């Protein structure tokens, strides 16, 4: 499929902020094509270097699955301990050398900005598989893809976000990506974990309609999509505060009467207790589907930056 004015060949995928609405939609369309009719020869002879300076089994495996499904090969490592970086080599030099062994790089690193340094070090396209607390763009693409698939559209939706909205990078990136569309947003969290003012300002400047709310039950009203996230214990000064919040922000089957009939629930997983397994069998749950969608979305991004599809 061809869309004019969108060219991904050789491009780095570092930050979701760098994508226009047209480009976001193009990636989703290619992902849908990959899911329907994957071409097992599309990336034959191509090598992906999966450079995981910090472990992330799922991100790594879904990139590997994406590459294999298209006929490509994967080299790489799953922990910094095995690399020369642990011998004091700079990240720049490592990526310059390892990039030279491959046609495309995916890298994950615990330090913010590492992926940008990687992209500047090598000529082959670099895909950011997560750089510390900063960006994880392929997660945002798969979240968008999941919403589009579950609802059939990205416009005219009321999307709720709940849990740790202050530190959750997936939440920030998804809200920024959705700001290209006619989406109303509801941010459900205790005041100490609400969306950062900077992001709310950005949304405001873009004319996005949103509200912040503490009460989960009230926040659920009229939602088409709910993006649930884990609240991490480390964010709280003491155990008591954590226990108090943890109990309140739990999505369970008892709340079903407050759901819109076609509400779809997403969660980046893994979950702890903010999302009851009793919801798994209901029509609301799309979170396992969401995890699975990581493969076609990553197939699309790999094929696009390698210039195998337009």
């Amino acid at each position, binding site marked *: 499929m061809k869309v004019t004015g969108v060219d991904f060949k050789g491009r780095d995928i570092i930050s979701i902020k760098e994508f226009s609405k047209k480009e976001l939609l193009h990636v989703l369309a290619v992902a849908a094509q990959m899911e329907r009719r994957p071409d097992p020869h599309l990336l034959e002879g191509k090598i992906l270097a999966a450079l995981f300076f910090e472990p992330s089994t799922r991100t790594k495996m879904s990139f590997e699955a994406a590459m294999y499904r298209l006929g490509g090969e994967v080299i790489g490592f799953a922990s910094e301990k095995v690399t020369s970086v642990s011998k004091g080599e*700079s990240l720049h030099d490592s990526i310059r050398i390892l990039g030279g062994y491959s046609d495309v790089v995916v890298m994950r690193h615990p330090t913010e900005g590492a992926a940008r340094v990687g992209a500047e070090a090598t000529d082959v396209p670099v895909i950011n598989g997560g750089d510390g607390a900063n960006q994880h763009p392929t997660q945002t693409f798969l979240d968008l893809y999941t919403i589009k698939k579950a609802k059939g559209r990205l416009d005219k939706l009321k999307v709720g976000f709940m849990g740790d909205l202050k530190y959750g990078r997936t939440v920030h990136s998804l809200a920024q990506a959705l700001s290209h569309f006619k989406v109303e947003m509801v941010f459900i969290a205790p005041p100490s974990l609400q969306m950062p003012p900077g992001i709310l300002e950005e949304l405001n400047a873009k004319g996005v309609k949103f509200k912040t709310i503490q009460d989960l039950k009230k926040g659920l009203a009229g939602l088409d999509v709910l993006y649930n996230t884990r609240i991490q214990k480390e964010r709280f000064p003491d155990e008591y505060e954590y226990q108090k919040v943890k109990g309140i922000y739990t999505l369970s089957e008892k709340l079903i009467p407050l759901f819109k009939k076609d509400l779809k629930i997403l969660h980046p997983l893994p979950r702890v207790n903010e999302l009851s397994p009793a919801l798994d069998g209901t029509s609301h749950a799309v979170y396992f589907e969401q995890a699975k969608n990581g493969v076609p979305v990553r197939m699309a991004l790999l094929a696009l930056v390698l210039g195998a599809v337009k």
Partner: protein
Amino acid sequence: MSQTGQMKEYKVSAIKNGTVIDHIPAGSAFKVAELLDLSHTKGTISVATNLKSRMLRKKGIIKIGNKELTENETNRVALFAPLATINIIEDYAVKEKRKVSLPTELHHLVKCVNPNCITNKEDVLTCFRVVRKDPLELRCHYCERVMGQDDLRLL
């Protein structure tokens, strides 16, 4: 005690050739001097601060003897003194008056406020985009953290 209002000011003397940076916010005069790396300049340098001003409540002035600031240096001044005026002095007269203007990108000039930014962990030259001028907001090209005036630290 009773003569507070009449206390003599020690006026900073005029310079023959060089640059006078006027209208620096009082708290920023020394930062501007640091920013321009004036401690390594050979000519006479005087930094005056807490002077009365019509434009700012209190202002600072820097006089640099025998040195004409470059365009690039002029614009760096805007980081801490967005309203500053630069007077290029020749033979005791103002040869040229410039307004400072902040560049759109700052290369290898300030430090990122984020301790977990790659620029603070490895030998990577910093780069910031100016996302807003007033109040000042800079976005790190690497970690994407936005910092304000209070977070500014020179490299």
